[in-house]
């Protein structure tokens, strides 16, 4: 039991969701990128979340806690290995001998949905931060 722990958990979720939104934005920005440092077209990136026990914080409002709270963190950013779509564009400088250009496997509709989901999850966790704050303030008003 630790009210600041609630803030820590929600804070870790906020950081993770922000990272997810950043990766989605990178996908959207590179939706038409045909050249990358690794060579070839850009491949869609995905974030993988992992539950993370948070350390205890020796602060004023913290009391003894029985079990560690589960925060969340971005475990890793993986590459989506679905096949890349090919479009017939003979005039394109990156076209192959047959005139086909390999484009990134980024679907704008899917990215937009992911972005909305990340934004909503961010709002959700921000609301949890607000709730934690108002709970602490309520408990402080017991004394006055």
């Amino acid at each position, binding site marked *: 039991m630790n009210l600041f722990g609630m803030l820590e958990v929600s804070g870790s979720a906020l950081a993770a969701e922000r990272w997810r939104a950043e990766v989605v934005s990178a996908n959207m920005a590179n939706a038409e990128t045909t050249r990358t440092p690794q060579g070839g077209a850009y491949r869609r990136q995905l974030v993988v979340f992992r539950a993370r026990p948070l350390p205890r914080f020796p602060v004023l409002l913290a009391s003894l806690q029985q079990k560690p709270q589960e925060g969340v963190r971005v475990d890793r950013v993986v590459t989506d290995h679905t096949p890349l779509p090919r479009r017939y564009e003979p005039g394109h400088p990156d076209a192959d001998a047959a005139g086909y250009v390999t484009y990134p496997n980024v679907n704008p509709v899917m990215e937009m949905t992911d972005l909305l989901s990340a934004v909503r999850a961010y709002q959700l966790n921000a609301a949890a931060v607000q709730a934690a704050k108002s709970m602490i303030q309520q408990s402080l008003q017991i004394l*006055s």
Partner: protein
Amino acid sequence: MNGAISSLRILPAEIDTAALRPENESGAGFREVLHSAIDDIQQLEGQAETKVAGVLQGNGADVHSAMIAVEKADLSFQLMMQVRNKIVSAYQEISRMQF
């Protein structure tokens, strides 16, 4: 009659004033508690300050973690103030006591 009154007398063994004597006081006094609370809050305020400065200087600090750090410092300060107000008002109550 006299026998009845003397039987009402509290036996010395029953009076335990040890707990009332200040030299037997255990643990930290109010001063130390308040000091350590203020130290804790100063630490939290320092963290909040570092994070806000990081956001303003744009060296990659998260806005939300800065806001949460500020909020933590504020709530700890409010708690400290509430406890201090309560204890000071108790002290004033005692100092107004008439004998």
